[in-house]
């Protein structure tokens, strides 16, 4: 993400001045100054430091980042690591490491917050199936809610795919979901299988050769290595870039100018009708914007159509055949309001919206396109199509739980009891039931509630 963010700002910011847009994600620091006094708020860019805290209970990944090309972007004081890892155990992450590192995490967060003129939102990026991301991550979520109640909490959660190699991932995921239900403002679920499918599609487009495509030298599909990507080399890099693009596009309208801006607080305001129903399915189109490949621009309208197809969602879901509670279209680049309106009119008849929000669209237009492309679209849908994912998760949980398989690893952690599992399960079931009730209204005729009418 930070790699792409830097590239994006570099493309827009010609003069090297530290501006409002940059300050959303980065601090400007004079590294020669020792201690905290080094922050510079205006003027030329000195050294950019990411407004981020990196947490992992084992050192491998963080060390790799610190030795990589982006090592200067991260402040060494903003890291929290341990040695042994959480063992894919939510309880270890949440209860053991949560307690152990609570103070430290809080202190680092407070420091980061102090460096901000106006803190609007936290982005939490983690996986649901593991131990640290899932356990410690959700512990952190609650802490953020208590400590910074007015700041929005956006969570990007990677859900376990069908073929997941972590056996305890259903336990971890469901224990984490309870926390997400209660403490997150907005969750963007992702799953690896969908990301992989998208990468494969891009590969196909690139290697089919029919359209005379070429890969640009600094391909954004892979990491900053710069070489032409070999197929299936380090697929996670390419998949992660998709999520990075998601976050960039989500915040583009808040960072850059446009004729219809959309801030992050507007996402929550418009797309979350009831506090519990805050799971948003996302899709990014056109696909080639995720790969920096040189494909001749297709028709603009195709971009809009694709955003609603099940093949473009970042999680296994089919929004077109489920019920929409709300939908947001965030457009970047050379697209005007008439294009937006035309496509909304065109696509609306094929989509089902809930009765009390028949025309529930939130739109935004940002003038700055993604690097190297003319336009792109991010669609966020609050749609009942997330229900199957949750139901499947519950299914897998039950298969393990019925046999009490692997349960003792959790129960031996202080503070964990079987009731934790029951509560988490009932929280998820409650959520699924909400979606069920909404789905039941799908085919019902839309009736107006009685009211005083305007005299005509």
């Amino acid at each position, binding site marked *: 993400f930070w790699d792409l963010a830097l590239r994006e700002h570099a493309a827009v910011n010609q003069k090297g001045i530290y501006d409002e847009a940059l300050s959303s994600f980065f601090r400007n620091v004079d590294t020669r100054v020792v201690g905290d006094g080094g922050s510079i708020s205006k003027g030329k860019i000195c050294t950019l430091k990411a407004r981020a805290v990196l947490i992992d209970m084992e050192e491998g990944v963080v060390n790799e980042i610190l030795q990589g090309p982006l090592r200067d972007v991260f402040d060494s004081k903003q890291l929290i690591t341990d040695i042994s890892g959480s063992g894919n155990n939510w309880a270890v992450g949440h209860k053991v490491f949560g307690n152990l590192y609570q103070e430290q995490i809080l202190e680092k967060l407070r420091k980061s917050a102090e460096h901000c003129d106006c803190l609007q939102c936290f982005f939490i990026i983690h996986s649901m199936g593991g131990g640290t991301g899932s356990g410690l991550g959700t512990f952190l979520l609650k802490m953020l809610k208590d400590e910074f109640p007015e700041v929005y909490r956006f969570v990007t959660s990677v859900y376990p795919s069908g073929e997941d190699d972590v056996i305890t991932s259903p336990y971890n995921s469901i224990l984490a979901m309870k926390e997400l239900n209660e403490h997150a403002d907005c969750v963007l679920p992702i799953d690896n299988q969908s990301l992989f499918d998208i990468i494969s599609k891009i590969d196909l487009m690139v290697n089919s050769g029919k359209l005379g495509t070429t890969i640009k030298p600094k391909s954004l599909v892979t990491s900053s290595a710069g070489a032409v990507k070999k197929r299936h080399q380090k697929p996670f890099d390419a998949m992660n870039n998709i999520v990075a693009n998601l976050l960039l596009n989500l915040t583009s309208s808040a960072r850059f100018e446009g004729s*219809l801006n959309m801030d992050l607080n507007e996402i929550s*305001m418009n797309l979350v009708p009831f506090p519990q129903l805050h799971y948003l399915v996302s899709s990014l189109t056109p696909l080639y914007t995720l790969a920096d490949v040189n494909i001749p621009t297709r028709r603009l309208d195709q971009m809009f159509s694709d955003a609603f197809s099940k093949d473009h969602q970042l999680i296994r879901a089919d929004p077109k055949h489920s019920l929409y509670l709300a939908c947001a279209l965030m457009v970047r680049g050379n697209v005007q309001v008439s294009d937006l*309106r035309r496509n909304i009119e065109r696509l609306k008849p094929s989509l089902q919206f809930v009765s009390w929000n028949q025309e529930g*669209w939130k739109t935004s237009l940002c003038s700055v396109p993604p690097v190297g492309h003319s336009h792109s679209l991010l669609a966020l849908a609050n749609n009942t199509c997330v229900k199957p994912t949750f139901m499947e998760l519950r299914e897998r949980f039950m298969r393990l739980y019925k046999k009490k398989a692997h349960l003792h690893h959790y129960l031996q952690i202080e503070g964990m009891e079987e009731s934790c599992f029951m509560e988490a399960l009932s929280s998820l079931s409650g959520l699924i039931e909400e979606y069920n009730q909404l789905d039941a209204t799908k085919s019902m005729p839309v009736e*107006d*509630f009685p009211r005083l009418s*305007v005299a005509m």
Partner: protein
Amino acid sequence: MSVVTVQLGQCGNQIGFEVFDALYTDSHCPQGLCSKRENEAYQASCKERFFSEEENGVPIARAILVDMEPKVTSQTLSKAAQSGRWKYGQHSCFCQKQGSGNNWAYGYSVDGPRHEESIMNLIQKEVEKCDSLSGFFIIMSMAGGTGSGLGAFVTQNLQDQYSNSLKMNHIIWPYRTGEVIVQNYNSILTLSHLYRSSDALLVHENDALHKICAKLMNIKQISFSDINQVLAHQLGSVFQPTYSVEGSCHYRRNPLGGFKDQALYTSWLKPINAFNVWKTQRAFRKYEKSAALVSNSQFLLKPLDTIVGKAWNMFAS
């Protein structure tokens, strides 16, 4: 007689820029299809109404720019300054770091009281620059958070503080098929508050303006800038002075007759009284002939009913 404009939110500020630009361009049209004397009187009058003078001759718009996030206001300020023809006052801008999040309640109950003093002070300063204040022109949208909520709050304050001045609110009616999901809530909250504190609500519907761009002007890719320019044209031709040199404030009545259809008029007014014509020789923006119609009619009842219906359905669910 001067008018102080208050531009609120992204919509208000983007429109405000186009309006001032249209007014400036029009008043500086070298040929007005009228006598030189009349052209000069027209220019002077327009300038007095909407701009104040600066030392180096660049007119400054009599306007306050208000927004809860900085991007749009800084863009508007720089666009005006770059044009070299007119600009906004250096200190006429009020903005914060974090937007209102499309939340009317945030604009009205949080941002309003919190920034009341700063905003009213800015307005006061602008008012003091006027020799005689004719009234306020408040540009705002109904669908967003700042324009709608803060706009309602500011209008109320203006009612309290400047009860003798005219307050005209220019409100933008959002697209029917959603720009903002909670636009219906924001709209009815705004309208219900403005009823009590505003003297006149001048309405422009995004749908109508869009249609004009598409059907009448044949613009293929319509941008908000196009829409705002159409709007500014309409407003400009309504705002520009209609004096003739013979006597200011002298308007000629009705040589065109009125609309023939009796059903267009209310029962308590005779057609001859219901329909007023202001005619001026001086052309607007080089159009040989142009006319603008401002009407107080029932044309917004249906859209209003639709909005209330949708808001109610959302609320009652």
